[in-house]
């Protein structure tokens, strides 16, 4: 069976480029293509065309950061999901499995509950995500007598549920007029309020998480083997897992801190990418990231253009992603397993 590597990459990158251009071109603020072209000329070539005054703000300060954020969050979630699906040897695993989203949600909800500023809420989300995974990993790793993978998953479920209950309690105690709507909206996820400052915060952490995954891109394949096999091949499995969990958690926490909880990307995109290009991680990771970025960009663009009010991206990812995935499932050749 041949892998359609080059055509797959080419198609994915082309789709991404087109979507990015499209995303710049559409939006609720009325801008003509002429305005956009003029602005592009001004920025790229130093030309001096006249553009409507707010156009520059909209394109550079509002749409631009939001598009970059969509690309960043989509790629980060897809990369995390890919790494975890390999590490847990299970194609149905999502980046939330170790509780990073629940922890981030708790951090953000606490911030909202105590009426903090947007920056503090973001930091709270980031710190919460990291802390939750640290607890889950410690609990999972301290249980010696079971399969370490199973122990991690169970710890993730238990701690995630606990954090979820605390969030539910906070929602209950929150002021129903003021805090509760803010909490609800954060939990639904949104890229509506991304500022350049948020990108400056999230990008370094996401990159920091990506670097180990990129460096270990071939070793990751070995995590798909049983522990004994991998160790017999010379892989320090426990240490590699810690590295992967740290990397994936950094990426996911950084993404969730700026976007809230957007589900399905970390689960579906790696799966779809694997159906296209196979499980070999060094080929799978880049494709997964490109597809994740493109998908979230498409979803976010829809989210901000189809109505005057925002449609939560998490709802759209589920509505779009599920039928698409079913189609892929049905038409893929048997050898996807």
């Amino acid at each position, binding site marked *: 069976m041949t892998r359609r590597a080059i055509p797959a990459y080419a198609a994915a990158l082309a789709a991404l480029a087109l979507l990015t251009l499209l995303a710049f071109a559409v939006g609720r603020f009325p801008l003509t293509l002429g305005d956009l072209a003029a602005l592009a000329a001004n920025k790229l070539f130093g030309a001096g065309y006249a553009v409507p005054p707010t156009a520059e703000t909209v394109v550079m300060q509002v749409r631009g950061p939001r598009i970059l954020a969509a690309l960043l969050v989509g790629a980060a979630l897809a990369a995390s999901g890919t790494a975890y699906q390999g590490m847990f040897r299970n194609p149905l695993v999502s980046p939330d499995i170790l509780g990073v989203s629940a922890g981030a949600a708790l951090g953000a909800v606490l911030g909202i509950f105590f009426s903090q500023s947007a920056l503090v809420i973001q930091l709270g989300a980031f710190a919460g995500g990291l802390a939750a995974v640290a607890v889950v990993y410690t609990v999972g790793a301290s249980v010696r007598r079971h399969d370490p993978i199973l122990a991690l998953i169970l710890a993730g479920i238990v701690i995630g549920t606990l954090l979820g209950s605390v969030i539910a309690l906070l929602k209950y105690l929150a002021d129903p007029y003021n805090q509760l709507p803010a909490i609800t909206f954060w939990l639904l996820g949104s890229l509506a309020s991304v500022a350049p400052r948020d990108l400056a915060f999230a990008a370094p952490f996401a990159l920091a998480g990506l670097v180990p995954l990129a460096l270990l891109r071939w070793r990751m394949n070995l995590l798909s083997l049983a522990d*004994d*096999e991998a160790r017999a091949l010379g892989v320090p499995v426990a240490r590699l897992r810690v590295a992967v969990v740290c990397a994936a958690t950094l990426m996911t926490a950084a993404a969730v801190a700026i976007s809230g909880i957007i589900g399905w990307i970390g689960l579906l995109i790696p799966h779809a990418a694997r159906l296209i290009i196979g499980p070999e991680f060094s080929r799978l990771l880049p494709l997964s990231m490109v597809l994740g970025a493109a998908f979230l960009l498409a979803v976010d663009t829809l989210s901000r253009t189809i109505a005057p009010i925002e449609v939560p991206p998490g709802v759209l990812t589920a509505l779009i992603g599920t039928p698409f995935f079913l189609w892929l499932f049905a038409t893929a050749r048997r050898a996807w397993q």
Partner: protein
Amino acid sequence: MAVKLEARALGYGYPGRAVGRGLDLALPAGEVLCVLGPNGGGKTTLFRTLLGLLPAQAGEVLLEGQALARMARADVARRIGYVPQGHVAQFAFTVREAVLMGRTAHVGLFAAPGAADRAAAEQAIATLGIESLADRVVTELSGGERQLAMIARALAQGARALVLDEPTASLDFGNQVRVLREIRRLAIDGYAVVFSTHDPGQAFLAASRVLLLAHGGSLRQGAPQEVITPQNLREVYGVEVRVAVVEGARVCLPSL
């Protein structure tokens, strides 16, 4: 003949539970050791200890004369290869990609396999004669084909000692024969091979030494015809067998 795999007064088991004690083993290149024993008799425990996956409870294991306990994992992997029983294929890697994974111990931490590694993998595939399978996906292979691919992976490690845990389990008769044939050929090529099986007849076919493990850790070691006797098998398995010579080859038949 260099001694590839050696055990000295080896005690093996799990924390709080000793499974076997006082095992002495010396396996030079070209020898095939068959390990027999009932379920739960400690074969897998012994293998995991020989591979360094489980710490020895007493004594030591030596690979090519060096103590395993003091070796780095990658060094161990370069000297001894493991073919597990029943590899579960979760993801659709090709055989070539799977065999290439055997080169891990030779590939730097942050690197990917290079030309030399790919050549070694091709060599391993050729040695086992499975070129026709190289581009197929492991999840689509039959049990026997997958087993051969795993042996190729162990060969790609560059190790000269191989441990195969029940390599013929759940294989059809034809594939069983293929695997046994490969084991003999590997020995001829200078590998030291250890394999376990439930069929004493396979020891006669492929092994030059036999280790018979019983519950409680007692063991017998020696040439196949010395160890596979009706008394020993009656003691260990609790069944009656007849050992006979057919056309110059020894066979072991149960008496029903």
